[in-house]
């Protein structure tokens, strides 16, 4: 798969848009030269910080005796809530519900209470163990089930309403209800949270943070230290994985080192052990989703009512927008006509759940697919038929429960294509025949679609800035507000700038995201990185290009419109010059060669109180088929084959996008299968390391894995080079794995009953679902 110029007769740049150059850091990754936070050479006198954590889920701290901690070897100072000069809140929304260090009250096991700064990390870690804390234990609410009756929320719920769901259910030919439980998910970024703070003059501080949101780190440091944002510079070159887990969860770690650096005048670093990282930080929300549906004899949905209850943890964090997005995606690709969808963001005494690839959308998609399954078994059809029957239309039946019209629907075509290319029908028949004669191993297949709304639902975040410098030697330096967590954003944006200037990609130097270069940035989240920052960088490049064109036009006596940038040259008619030569001359002629660029997404608006608007600029689509085999004696299973067809618009970098599709799929598969978070009855997370929390391993990658990006499709909205966002949508393609397992399980009751398989579908859950289904089948009881 070597990169290089496409076979064309006329010269072209290398690494422009729609090509597949390697990730900008690939060479540094494989040689070990890429610097992550803990690899940055340490400033002299750097201190190491470690956090002392709550041992109880809900308790008052009667006394906090840190005498032994302070006198432990190497300890320089210990910090508590009393040391916070500003507002003791690291929450992304600034609601005051998320202290940096707990003050008298702890609300989850693992909540930081104090911080130790010591000469070595080992000393800081050892010292932390010496604290003597007297707790007064309070009643703890640990899960959704116990939280629901009290109904204490961390954020106001969202209510979506379309048509009259009550009337639709009342008059529907068939009606049924049920509950889907979907577990949470640990991000398991391979690089744990980490930050370094370096004090400067005038109380300034520079923070190097493994964060998806440098501007928020800057703002929260400002809030905690009570100093203006201009005194704080936050830099992030790359993360060793983020997946949403470093959108807000990095705040705490960055802020605590900033506090230490400011107070002690020494640089400070924090890098929690993996176990502590997993215990302290929030995860994907687990949900319990109640649904009631009405449908006709064919399986066409008349109306739905849903309540989506989520375990949010002790604070709001991003739980409001996360549960909102669950509601936005509880339709997936289906027209409900009449719908009532309500979120229930419940407060619990657990770590504060947060953003995770899909941001609530995946949980919403899962309830939509469960509904389809229920109807399919009720009317005795293949779930795929029910899916097709209920797809949004292209000209009618296309209004979502939030009153946005789906204007770019391509799901029918994608599904038809995939159904053919994956040989779905034939394989389904083969599987049924296999299952008829094999008592122990049963196979299953399912095809599920995805529609995912692109834009931050908080409209103000849909803006971005970039800074481009062209130096007099023709080399170009690029900076923008997006962060690199492995998704290839830096590469894509550099391709866009290369394309704009018509120079080879390697003429462009990508620099670390830095709040001093581009201010007031949004989190690199919501799949928006390339859409927003690519546009901003293009705008900056165009500004410089226009200046160069005007300069060349004047020189050559033509109009700027006559100037053509192509393959490293600038020309007009018979006049031609290399880009480098023109830039040199432009500098001599005092032309500014530096520009900022700015972009804001057009058309979007959202009225949360009314539950109406146009929150998404466009939708990304995809579909996937999984085939699985289950062991009906043990509940173990194997994913045998997966076929994916995904819509990335006109892909900016097909190799990188393919990586996002495959990686997102496998991560989604892990969420729905082996990744199980398990708390004990005291609220202690017991799956806090890779030994106990099982993300997919190499052997779990499907042995047959056919992945295609949809060809000949471009974004109907005016996005950067008509591409589509691709970070989150593929995660939901993994729904097909859960449904293939469900299909295999259904065979034990002759496909007459909906298995109602919850997630994560661990071998245990698969086996017990099989047993439950056998029992339901034997008692002949219809669906409850």
């Amino acid at each position, binding site marked *: 798969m070597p990169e290089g110029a496409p076979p064309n007769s006329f010269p072209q740049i290398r690494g422009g848009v729609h090509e597949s150059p390697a990730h900008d850091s690939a060479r540094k990754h494989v040689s070990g030269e890429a610097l992550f936070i803990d690899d940055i050479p340490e400033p002299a006198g750097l201190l190491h910080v470690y956090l002392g954590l709550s041992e109880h889920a809900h308790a008052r701290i009667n006394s906090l005796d840190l005498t032994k901690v302070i006198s432990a070897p190497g300890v320089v100072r210990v910090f508590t809530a009393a040391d916070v000069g500003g507002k003791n809140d690291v929450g992304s929304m600034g609601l005051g519900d998320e202290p940096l260090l707990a003050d008298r009250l702890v609300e989850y096991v693992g909540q930081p209470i104090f911080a130790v700064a010591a000469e070595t990390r080992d000393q800081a870690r050892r010292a932390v163990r010496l604290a003597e804390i007297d707790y007064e234990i309070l009643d703890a609410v640990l899960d959704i089930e116990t939280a629901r009756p009290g109904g204490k929320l961390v954020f106001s719920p969202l209510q979506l309403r379309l048509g009259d769901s009550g009337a639709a259910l009342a008059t529907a030919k068939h009606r049924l209800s049920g509950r889907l439980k979907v577990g949470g998910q640990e991000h398991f*970024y*391979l690089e744990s949270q980490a930050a370094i703070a370096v004090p400067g003059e005038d109380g300034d501080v520079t923070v190097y943070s493994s964060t998806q949101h440098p501007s928020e780190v800057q703002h929260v440091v400002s809030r905690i230290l009570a100093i203006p944002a201009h005194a704080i510079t936050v830099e992030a070159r790359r993360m060793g994985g983020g997946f949403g887990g470093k959108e807000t969860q990095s705040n705490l770690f960055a802020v605590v080192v900033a506090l230490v650096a400011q107070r002690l005048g020494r640089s400070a670093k924090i890098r929690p052990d993996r176990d502590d990282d997993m215990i302290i930080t929030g995860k994907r929300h687990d949900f319990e989703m109640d649904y009631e549906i009405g449908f006709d004899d064919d399986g066409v949905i008349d109306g739905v009512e849903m309540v989506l209850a989520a375990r949010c943890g002790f604070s709001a964090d991003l739980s409001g927008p996360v549960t909102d997005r669950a509601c936005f995606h509880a339709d997936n690709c289906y027209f409900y006509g009449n719908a009532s969808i309500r979120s229930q963001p419940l407060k619990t005494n657990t770590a504060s759940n947060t953003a995770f690839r899909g941001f609530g959308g995946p949980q919403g998609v899962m309830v939509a697919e469960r509904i389809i399954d229920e109807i399919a078994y009720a009317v005795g059809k293949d779930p795929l038929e029910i899916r097709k029957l209920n797809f949004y239309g292209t000209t009618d039946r296309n209004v979502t429960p939030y009153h946005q019209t789906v204007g770019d629907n391509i799901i029918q075509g994608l599904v038809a294509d995939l159904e053919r290319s994956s040989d779905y029908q034939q394989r389904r028949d083969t599987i049924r025949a296999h299952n008829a004669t094999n008592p122990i191993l049963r196979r299953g297949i399912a095809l599920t679609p995805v529609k995912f709304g692109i834009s931050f639902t908080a409209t103000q975040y849909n803006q971005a800035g970039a800074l481009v410098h062209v130096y007099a030697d023709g080399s170009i330096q690029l900076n923008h507000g997006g962060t690199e967590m492995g998704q290839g954003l830096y590469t894509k944006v550099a391709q866009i700038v290369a394309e704009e200037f018509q120079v080879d990609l390697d003429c462009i130097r990508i620099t670390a995201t830095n709040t001093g270069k581009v201010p007031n940035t949004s989190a690199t989240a919501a799949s928006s990185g390339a859409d927003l920052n690519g546009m901003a960088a293009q705008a900056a490049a165009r500004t410089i290009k226009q200046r160069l064109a005007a300069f060349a036009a004047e020189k050559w006596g033509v109009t700027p419109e006559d100037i053509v940038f192509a393959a490293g040259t600038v020309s007009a008619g018979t006049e031609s010059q290399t880009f480098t030569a023109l830039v040199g001359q432009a500098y001599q002629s005092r032309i500014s060669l530096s520009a900022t660029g700015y972009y804001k997404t057009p058309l979007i608006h959202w009225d949360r109180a009314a539950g109406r608007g146009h929150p998404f600029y466009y939708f990304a689509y995809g579909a996937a088929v999984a085939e699985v085999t289950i062991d009906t004696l043990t509940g173990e299973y*194997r994913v045998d084959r997966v076929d994916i067809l995904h819509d990335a618009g006109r892909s900016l970098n097909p190799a990188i996008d393919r*990586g996002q599709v495959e*990686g997102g799929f496998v991560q989604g598969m892990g969420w729905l299968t082996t990744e199980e978070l398990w708390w004990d009855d005291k609220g202690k997370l017991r799956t806090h390391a890779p030994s106990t929390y099982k993300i997919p*391993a190499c*052997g*779990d*990658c499907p042995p047959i894995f056919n992945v295609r990006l949809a060809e000949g499709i471009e974004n109907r909205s005016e996005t950067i080079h008509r591409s589509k966002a691709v970070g989150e949508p593929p995660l939901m393609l993994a729904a097909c794995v859960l449904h293939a397992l469900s299909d295999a399980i259904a065979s034990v009751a002759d496909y007459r009953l909906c298995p109602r398989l919850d997630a994560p579908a661990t071998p245990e859950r698969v086996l017990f679902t099989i047993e439950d289904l056998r029992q339901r089948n034997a008692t002949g009881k219809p669906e409850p």
Partner: protein
Amino acid sequence: MTRSVVRFLLGDKIQEIGNIDPTTTVLDWLRLHKRLNGTKEGCAEGDCGACTVVIGRIDGERVRYEAVNACIRFVPTLDGCHLLTVEHLRKRDGGFHPVQQAMVDCHGSQCGFCTPGFVMSLFALYLSEACPSEDRIRDVLAGNLCRCTGYAPIIAAARHMYELGDRSTDALVLTAEELNSRLNGGDKIASVFLENAGKRYFAPPTVESLADVLVANPGATIVSGATDVGLWVTKSQKILDSIVYLGGIPELRRIVETHDSLEIGGAATFADAEAALTALYPDFGELLRRTGGLQVRNVGTFGGNIGNGSPIGDTPPALIAIGATVVLRHGNERRSMPIEDYFIAYGKQDRRPGEFIERVVIPKPAPGTTFGAYKISKRFDQDISAVCGAFLVELSGGIVTRVRIAFGGMAGTPKRAAGAEAALTGKNWDLGTVAVAMEALRGDFTPLADWRASSEYRRTVSANLLMKFFNETTVGDPQTRLVGQRRITHA
């Protein structure tokens, strides 16, 4: 003679270290002392592979290069070895090693944090095998977690790397003679003794000297691969006053086949024993394949696996079912016992101070014997069993003449299912008998509920495993397995 320094090669540079805390991990040493930051810490428990390095150790005439987790390996155990990290792979002209180039070409990195570890695992594979199968590639990489790519491009790189270089002449590979001479060899049979900040480290070169050291230091912690003890240090920050390392005793990792048994040295690794055990008991081999990642199997030992007394164990359920015995040695005295007797209770084993596990004796299957072993876990590869069941049955004319059933994960120790065995012994090997035995099995254990499984699942699945075993012994070619190519043993 005794040395008070350890000597090894880091890349092409000799390291001579005497003054070091013996429990300093290789990872910390590389990153904090040598400022070689290419090797990453992902979990500090040997489960994610981000810290994978390649260690060459002398094995006869050659140096065997193996992938190892640096995060739980102690520095002094590198004595006599050749340590290679991601920083050493580039060619002298600055070009990439085929393994690195293949990863770039195949888009095998995204965030890049796990990448050096994958590169090193691939490098070890590249050195040791010419054309690994698809399954083998997945096996070799099972100990490296990647959260970004979904693995497909890395698997592609594992194939592509062979197209980019000539394996026969890798510049980094040394012969045993070269390594020895670089390390001023000749004193390989020396004992190593380090003392630092009140901590003592012994590495005896022979079993005799090991026995002496342990008699003199009965409270010392015995360490081989440190795949368990390493976590005491990295996770619990436990201070280990005295360590006795077994990895430098070739005779203790010997595997000897006798007329009626296989004798596995206490310090033989899982990787060492896999082939010999697979030949005798294919399902045991499959069990070993699924024990840890390759980085763990390369260093984890039979003695350690039994000695640490885990209630789950990887090998003990199978060893018990097979009827293996363990030979313990104290000074010059030896005693042996059935493995099941070694496990007294949770956290308590029948090992006296100063004693060590010298070898494990595994009987060859008797005629008419069938053996099957099953590991149930959330993930197939590199996971710890929720339940591990091992079954050995001897039939004569359709009658069960001998049966041994053992489980891990069902009690405080790996344990036999006495009730189920009784229900089967002397009976017809048929569905009716098995149904009765399954019921009896439910009464044999009162398993715990934890994050790996509920109590009820453990009960149900353990009984169902007996049914599975029965199916596999009676039906011609039953489709009963999701993974592994092994078949149960018919001797």
